[in-house]
């Protein structure tokens, strides 16, 4: 009888302990205080606002697609599908694209060549960094020495040759075409590249990075290799 009583009290005390511990955990939950000042919060808010407007724009464009589908449901579904296909191809970089943009020319620094410096391959790291900067500045499409950069593009060193899409770059000089969504964006890109440290970084590798004035008509080649996707599979009809 007595043992039974102790067991029950033990269970009750166990529950009490658990409840107190949970309560303690819950109360001390905001362990780190929010110490941002109003400016930091405003900046974060602005970032979220930008994301918001980007999402809204996306919703609007998708709604347009839905509307087009609905309109052409009876008339010609095929053309609507074709349109979507073309849009997706454009997004994936499978089509040639013409629009405003900036041309970057990478060439060996002439004075260093005259002095007998050996001009090596451009390093993949430098190219990757440049690409990151380009996309950060809202580049819509990029091609390096005629090789269109798409989602799956790899820039790497293969047997001492720097390759883009597994195609070795021709030795400098070569050109990097940067397509943007508007001429204004192209001007912005030009200015920010002029102000960036890339010219110096390229010079460290014995290259001159020439940034040409933005143009209205720049044609970027299509991605010419088959796109491989190892992870996407076709959905069975009716699923």
């Amino acid at each position, binding site marked *: 009888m007595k043992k039974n009583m102790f067991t029950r009290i033990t269970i009750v*005390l166990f529950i009490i302990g658990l409840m107190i511990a949970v309560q303690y955990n819950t109360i001390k939950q905001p362990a780190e205080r929010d110490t941002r000042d109003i400016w930091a919060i405003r900046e974060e808010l602005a970032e979220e606002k930008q994301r918001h407007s980007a999402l809204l724009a996306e919703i609007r464009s998708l709604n347009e697609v839905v509307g087009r589908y609905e309109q052409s449901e009876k008339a010609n579904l095929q053309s609507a599908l074709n349109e979507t296909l073309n849009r997706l191809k454009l997004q994936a970089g499978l089509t040639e694209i013409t629009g405003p943009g900036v041309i970057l020319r990478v060439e060996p620094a002439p004075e260093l060549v005259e002095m007998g410096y050996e001009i090596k391959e451009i390093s993949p790291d430098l190219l990757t960094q440049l690409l990151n900067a380009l996309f950060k500045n809202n580049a819509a499409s990029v091609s390096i020495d005629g090789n269109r950069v798409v989602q799956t593009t790899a820039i790497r060193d293969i047997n001492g040759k720097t390759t883009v899409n597994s195609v070795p770059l021709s030795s400098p000089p070569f050109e990097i075409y940067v397509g943007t969504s508007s001429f204004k964006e192209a001007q912005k890109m030009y200015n920010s590249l002029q102000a960036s440290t890339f010219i110096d970084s390229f010079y460290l590798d014995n290259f001159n990075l020439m940034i040409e004035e933005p143009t209205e008509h720049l044609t970027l080649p299509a991605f010419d290799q088959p796109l491989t996707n190892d992870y996407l599979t076709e959905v069975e009809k009716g699923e």
Partner: protein
Amino acid sequence: MWLPFLGLIFGLALGLLTNIQIPSIYENYLSIAVLAALDTLFGGIRAQLQQVYDDKVFVSGFFFNIALAAGLAFLGVYLGIDLYLAAIFAFGVRLFQNIAIIRRILLTRIDEKRHKRNKNSIE
């Protein structure tokens, strides 16, 4: 004798180590439930000291009080009356009373013991 304390320590350890957290809306309910549980616990200790302890009363009181307190708080939220204050008040007062009674009983017992020892030494 030490089994109940082991249970308490085990419960505390489990709660602290697993770092379980409840959503902050339920925080009120839990705090009231903790209060009810403590009240029942001290009530049980008092009853044991007064030799009127009953297992059934203790265990049923424990769960019933917790449920009642949480229920009152829940009702209060929906009626717009801070009914949980009633529970806090009731349990708070009883907690103090129980602890006061426990203190007195323990004091009398210590006094009695001392008396006995004195008597023994005189004899």
